[in-house]
């Protein structure tokens, strides 16, 4: 048995381990609809670009340097087949890139993690960070946020046969999965302080842990849970309604950048012309069984 065979069987076993249909990644995005929507996005005139040094710099460079992720199922997931990223965050990024440069594809991607998001902006290694980036006071001390462009709330996912957990009130003493680097741990500390919290690196690992019975519940962004259920075979269910504070997602920019005003104007524009709602429907609504788009969060 060669090393290659062993590695291959490891990968196969891992694929098998995460292949449970009930907890699969969820309904895929309609790529054609997504691409068409981005291609119809507005393009700024020269005066609008010239009014912002942040946008002017990107226009002169000929590409927008993004700090983002490739593994966020609903928000920014890399499609290995065509090498494109799609999802709600990816849509906002591409619409903004098209708005500035006239071509949505001119994005230079840099992988960021929750440990590096501020630093890549401080070092000027990227023009913006758009990666389900919750606006918090500690972060706002170091960088500036445009937006918010989306708000989320937490939900609780349990196995379908679980009668003990009806809502977040029943999590005391239970093993609860959440994602490291998300606002999940803080939400649990506030709403279920007696829960035994286990932090997983990815959404898929947390789902696997729930499927394998390692944890009793999984708390994360409610829309992600709806998506996980969308392909479900009834093995899992949501326990109770979404709960917790509205968690606003912002677009990270270097401290004091005039890109904040520019991006906020752009967000108001795509919210007013219906693009935001269509993007939400394509990347989140259709994939979670929700029909009506929410009202976008107020932009200061």
């Amino acid at each position, binding site marked *: *048995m060669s*090393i290659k065979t*062993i*590695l291959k069987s*490891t990968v196969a*076993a*891992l694929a*098998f*381990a*995460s292949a449970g249909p009930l907890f699969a990644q969820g309904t895929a995005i309609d790529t054609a609809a997504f691409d068409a929507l981005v291609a119809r996005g507005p393009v700024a005139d020269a005066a609008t670009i010239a009014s912002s040094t942040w946008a002017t710099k990107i226009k002169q460079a000929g590409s927008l340097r993004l700090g983002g992720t490739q593994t966020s199922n609903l928000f920014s997931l890399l499609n290995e087949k065509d090498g494109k990223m799609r999802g709600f965050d990816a849509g906002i990024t591409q619409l903004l890139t098209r708005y500035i440069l006239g071509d949505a594809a001119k994005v230079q991607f840099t992988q960021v993690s*929750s*440990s*590096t*998001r*501020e*630093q890549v902006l401080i070092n000027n290694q990227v023009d913006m960070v758009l990666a389900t980036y919750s606006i*918090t006071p*500690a*972060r706002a*001390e*170091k*960088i500036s946020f445009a937006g918010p462009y989306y708000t989320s709330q937490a939900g609780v996912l349990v196995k379908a046969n679980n009668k003990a957990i009806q809502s977040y009130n029943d999590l005391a003493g239970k093993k609860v*999965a959440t994602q*490291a*680097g998300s606002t999940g*741990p803080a939400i649990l500390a506030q709403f279920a302080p007696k829960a035994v919290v*286990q*932090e*997983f*690196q990815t959404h898929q*690992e947390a789902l*696997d*842990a729930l499927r*394998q*019975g*390692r944890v009793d519940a999984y708390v994360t962004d409610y829309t992600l849970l709806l998506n996980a259920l969308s392909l479900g075979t009834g093995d899992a269910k949501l326990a109770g309604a979404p709960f917790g504070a509205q968690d606003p997602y912002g677009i990270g920019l270097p401290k004091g950048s005039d890109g904040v005003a520019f991006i906020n104007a752009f967000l108001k524009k795509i919210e007013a012309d219906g693009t935001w709602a269509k993007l939400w429907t394509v990347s989140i609504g259709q994939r979670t069984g929700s029909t009506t788009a929410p009202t976008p969060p107020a932009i200061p």
Partner: protein
Amino acid sequence: MGEVHKLLADYGPAFGQALLLTWKLTALSFVPGFALGVVVAVLRLLPLPPLRGALTAYVEVFRNIPTVGLLIFIVFALPDLNVVLDYDTAVVLTLALVCSAFTADYLRSGINTVDSGQIEAALSLGMRPITVITAIVLPQALRTVVQPVTSLLIALMLSTSLASQVPFPGRELTALVSKIANESAAGIAAFAVAAALYVTTGLVIGWLGGLLERRLRILR
């Protein structure tokens, strides 16, 4: 640097606990890993071809597998075969397996430095083969491999950061860095502090290994 000061004021005790956990994980995986490696190395000396083959396969697998891949396999794939290990057990097992494979391999080269004339002499004096191994071969082999095993121990200490990839109970240094990065957006300063603690630990291990090596060196 001001950021590091503020960080230590806020998280000083947490860093202390994280460092202790890093040390504890290192010790917990090194001791059984090293012992297992010695056993494997000795068993590979026995003239039993099937056993040799199996042990060679064992060493090659765990020496050539990405440690993080092994951990993810143990934590997320084994439960589908109805083997569910606790996260702390899984981390220690992963590190111990990898440590044992490297130990066995280094010891094999250490064993090869023992002159075959000594073994023939011992056998002709009427020593039993197992006594030859425990009294003549192993002591010399172990003295020879202090240096590579010191490097292995440092690598193992750094590999304890793997614990941050699973919901490990408690936070070692790398998991603490991730937590601080999220809470107070001070990821780089936190990483600098953790890196300094890793480096210091590595230097201490290296220095102790050097001392031991000088004490045990075989003058040839």
